[in-house]
C-alpha cells in the first residue's frame, strides 16, 4: 500500500491533473475510486476528506489535501528532487508560472469545462448537449486561445522554456476537447496546436490515458 492515495474518478479532469503530476514525479500511488454517479462524493465518508464534496482528495501519509492545483503544488515542492522539474526555485520565474497557472484556473478552465461537460460528459451520461451554451463558450474560449497564441510566440511553454505545472494543469481538459467539435479552436492556432501536441505526447500524460482504458 502506497503512502500516497488519490481519491477520485478517472473521468474527472481535476483528478487527472493530480495523476499526471504524480506520474511526472515518478511517484507510486493508490487510486481509490469514488463513484460520482452514485453520489459517493457527497456522503459523509468522503466529506471528511473534502468537505466541499468534490474530487479529488489526496493523502500523503498523515497529510490530507483537496483542490487539485494545491495538490499538484504540494507534490511539486515536496518531491522537488524526484522525476521531472515542474516548478521554479527563482521567485520571479515562479511568479510567471503562477500567472499562467492562474490564467488556466480563472479563465481557461471555466470556459473549457463548460464545453467539456456539454460535448464530452453529457453524451457519456445520456444527456442532451445544449448547443447555445456550446456556441457561447466556444466564442469565449476562442478569445482566450488568441492570448495563448501570442504568449506561445514568446516561449515554448506558458511559463517559459520548460514544461511546468502551468502547462500540466491544462492536459485533462484539452484532451477531452480535442476529441470534440471544438478541436479546431486548438488546431487552427499554429503555436497552440504545436504546444498541445507536445504536452499531450508526454509519457506521464499517456499513462493517465492508459488508466482510462
Amino acid at each position, binding site marked *: 500500500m502506497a503512502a500516497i492515495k488519490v481519491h477520485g474518478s478517472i473521468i474527472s479532469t481535476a483528478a487527472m491533473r493530480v495523476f499526471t503530476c504524480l506520474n511526472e514525479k515518478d511517484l507510486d500511488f493508490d487510486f481509490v475510486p469514488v463513484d460520482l454517479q452514485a453520489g459517493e462524493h457527497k456522503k459523509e465518508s468522503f466529506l471528511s476528506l473534502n468537505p466541499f464534496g468534490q474530487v479529488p482528495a489526496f493523502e500523503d501519509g498523515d497529510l490530507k*489535501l483537496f*483542490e487539485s492545483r*494545491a495538490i499538484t503544488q504540494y507534490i511539486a*515542492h515536496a518531491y522537488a528532487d524526484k522525476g521531472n522539474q515542474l516548478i521554479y526555485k527563482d*521567485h520571479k520565474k515562479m*511568479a510567471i508560472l503562477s500567472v499562467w497557472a*492562474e490564467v488556466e484556473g*480563472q479563465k481557461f478552465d471555466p470556459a473549457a469545462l463548460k464545453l467539456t461537460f456539454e460535448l464530452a460528459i453529457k453524451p457519456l451520461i445520456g444527456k442532451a448537449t445544449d448547443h447555445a451554451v456550446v456556441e457561447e463558450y466556444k466564442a469565449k474560449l476562442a478569445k482566450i486561445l488568441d*492570448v495563448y497564441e501570442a504568449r506561445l510566440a514568446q516561449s515554448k511553454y506558458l511559463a517559459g522554456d520548460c514544461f511546468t505545472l502551468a502547462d500540466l494543469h491544462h492536459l485533462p481538459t484539452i484532451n477531452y476537447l480535442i476529441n470534440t467539435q471544438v478541436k479546431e479552436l486548438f488546431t487552427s492556432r499554429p503555436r497552440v496546436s504545436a504546444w498541445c501536441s507536445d504536452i499531450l505526447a508526454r509519457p506521464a500524460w499517456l499513462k493517465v490515458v492508459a488508466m482510462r482504458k
Partner: protein
Amino acid sequence: MVVKVYGPITAACPQRVLACLLEVGVDFELIPVDLESGEHKRPEFLLRQPFGQVPAIEDGDFKLFESRAIIRYYAAKHAESGPNLLGSTLEEQAQVDQWLEVEAHNFNEMVYAIVLQLLILPRMGQPTDKALVQNCTEKLAKVLDVYDRRLSTSPFLAGEWFSLADLSHLPGIRYLTEEAGLGNLIRERNHVNSWWITISSRLAWKKVMQLLN
C-alpha cells in the same frame, strides 16, 4: 523602487494586491484605470494585461498580472522579513494553497456572479437575473457552512495564523457585506463572523479601506 499597481481602488482584485503589499510593507503607487471608459480594453493596457482586466503590476522591469499570482510573489519574496503569509513548512504551505484555491473556485465564482448581477449590470442599464442571484446565494451559503465548520477548529483558514488564504477573501466579503446587502450570510455564522471581524480589522486592510473612502 515603488511598485506600480494599475487598477481602480474600487475593484476587488486590485484591493487584494494592495492588502498584500501593505501587509508585507512594500511601497506602491496606485495608477487608476478607468473601467467605465474602457481603458482596460485599449491596446496600451492590453500590453500589460492581455485579457484586459485589472490589476497589472510593474516592479522596475518586472511585470505581472492575476492578483493571486501577484500576492504569492510578494508574500514569498518577503517571507523572511515580514509576516509569513505563506506558511513555514511544506504542510503549512499546502494548507494555504488549498484554501487559496477554495477562495478562487468555490467562493469567488459565486461572489463574482452575485456582484455582476446586483451591482455591475444595473450600472450598465441591464436587468438583474434574480433567479441566478438566488441560486448563487444558496450555493454560497453552503460553501460558508463549510467555512464555519473549518473555522470552528482553527482561527484562520490555513491554521493558527493569518495567511494569504484569509487575505484573498477580504475584497469579496466586503462586497457582500457593504454593497450587495448579503452581510447576513456572514453574520449568521458565528465562526465566519468572528473570522471576518478579525481579518477586516487588520491594519493593512484598514488602510485599503481608507484609500477606498
